[in-house]
């Protein structure tokens, strides 16, 4: 299933080709290729241990690519360290949220603006994030570590937005949240995409991911086994099979 197809038509913010990720010699990602075009929402779905997080970490540089290349905004990024990939405009909202537990909500958000700290626009960005997640506004002085799981997810996304990313990588934003909150988080993902931010969404909630994204890839034990526009995949019986971990 070749994925270079859509790359020609749109400028790609992210191009992953032949990506392999190794942990102590064992491959968790085995030659994955896909692109995410500017303004697109692309979903990466798959069961536990399929390698989704590993792909995102390699994209942002938290783990090295053993083979293959990661191109961000047209630039080969393999040798670029994480903090400079963030400076290029790519930001990961990691699995487990990684809130700075001992810092207040306000400080967490401010740290998101570490690279974009000009006072002139900082206030406006702050307001925008609080409009997207009003819950955070009520808790600005609360320690990040004492927030509920849902609030932490909002904070993690809000913090990422403070840096005005062009490409947002979301690792299972709905994980462990009640259905109502899940719906709210997905709604905010759509809101964020409307502002022109490109999104790569890793999810296990296949149904919502396929409703939210434009295109999706299904990852099974480190390989993409199925790709296509979400409209088609929604009715594809193989999705269910992949999700249950059966071979296709």
């Amino acid at each position, binding site marked *: 299933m070749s994925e270079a197809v859509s790359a020609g038509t749109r400028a790609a913010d992210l191009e992953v080709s032949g990506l392999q990720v190794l942990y102590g010699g064992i491959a968790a990602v085995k030659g994955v290729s896909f692109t995410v075009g500017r303004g697109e929402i692309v979903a990466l779905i798959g069961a536990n241990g399929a390698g989704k997080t590993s792909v995102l970490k390699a994209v*942002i*540089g*938290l783990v090295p690519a053993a083979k293959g290349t990661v191109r961000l905004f047209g630039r080969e990024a393999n040798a670029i*360290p*994480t*903090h*400079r990939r*963030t*400076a290029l405009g790519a*930001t*990961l909202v*990691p*699995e*487990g949220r*990684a*809130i*700075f*537990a*001992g*810092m207040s909500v306000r*400080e967490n958000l*401010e*740290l*998101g603006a*570490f*690279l974009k*700290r000009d006072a002139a626009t900082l206030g406006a960005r702050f307001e925008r994030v609080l409009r997207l997640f009003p819950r955070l506004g009520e808790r600005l002085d609360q320690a990040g570590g004492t927030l509920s799981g849902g609030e932490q997810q909002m904070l993690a996304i809000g*913090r*990422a937005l403070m*840096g005005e990313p062009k490409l947002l990588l979301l690792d299972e934003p709905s994980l462990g949240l009640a259905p109502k909150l899940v719906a709210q988080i997905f709604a905010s993902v759509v809101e964020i995409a409307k502002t022109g931010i490109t999104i790569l969404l890793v999810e296990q909630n296949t149904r919502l991911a396929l409703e939210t994204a434009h295109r999706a890839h299904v990852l099974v034990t480190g390989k993409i086994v199925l790709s296509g526009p979400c409209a088609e995949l929604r009715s594809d019986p193989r999705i269910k099979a992949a999700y249950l971990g059966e071979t296709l």
Partner: protein
Amino acid sequence: MSEFFQQIINGLSLGSIYALIALGYTMVYGILKLINFAHGEVFMLGAYSGYFLASALGVERYSASGQSFPLGLALVVLLGAMALSALLGVTIEALAYRPVRSAPRLTPLITAIGASLFLQNAAVLLFTPNPRPYPPILREVRFTLGGVIVTNIKLAIFVVAIVLMIGLHQFVQRTWTGRAMRAVSMNMDAARLMGIDVNATIRATFAIGSALAAAGGILFGLDQITINPLMGVLTGLKAFVAAVLGGIGNIPGAVVGGLLIGLAEQLTAGYLSPDYRDAITFLILVVILVLKPEGLLGVVRQEKV
């Protein structure tokens, strides 16, 4: 009663020196979970930097002619030694710690001890093992306050230490580099995701901690009259205990721990026996490790994700 206050004054000034050194241990531990055993040697070399800078600025000429060393030049000595030690700290980090940062925890511990021994012996070689009288950067002036003898030196030690500690607090809380340091100490990968250059932040931590240790070294020289190449061993260890007592990784904790160790040491020497002044520190270490291993102001750390 005035005897008691005398001990308190002496204890607080000694303790603020421990506090300055303890800050470096605690900041580095907070970020790297590494005990920087070479930190005591940075303190020692800071004292020597001050010694040589003061000589270069002609401190002997002033004292020979009965004049006191100008305050401006004393500040140059202090800041110059702090800058040199900052450079040394950054160099130690680059040579001894960065190459083994992702190795198992024991490896950087061993390179730390290696760096410490190397610097001790280099200092013995370069400066001879003999103690040197510390130059009179500040000429001692004594005055009595309600029966308690206070010297301008003890006062200066206290004032310099407090100013530096308040400065550090403001820096860590208010500047972007300070925020980056706190972020890296809480979650290194998350800090990277914010666009923080973790290596640069670690360098800044070593630079600041080492500069504070150098200030401690100069104040120690003024207080204790002589310096020698092995002065960092025991004093470094005591400052480390101070950091553990306050809660290692915790900046206010290092200050509280330093002051408490200084007070405990002076009171023990004054009321029990001077022979026990070093032993009390290690007794405190044992007690704190048994009763409250996370330290007075420390919190039990949750494992990072």
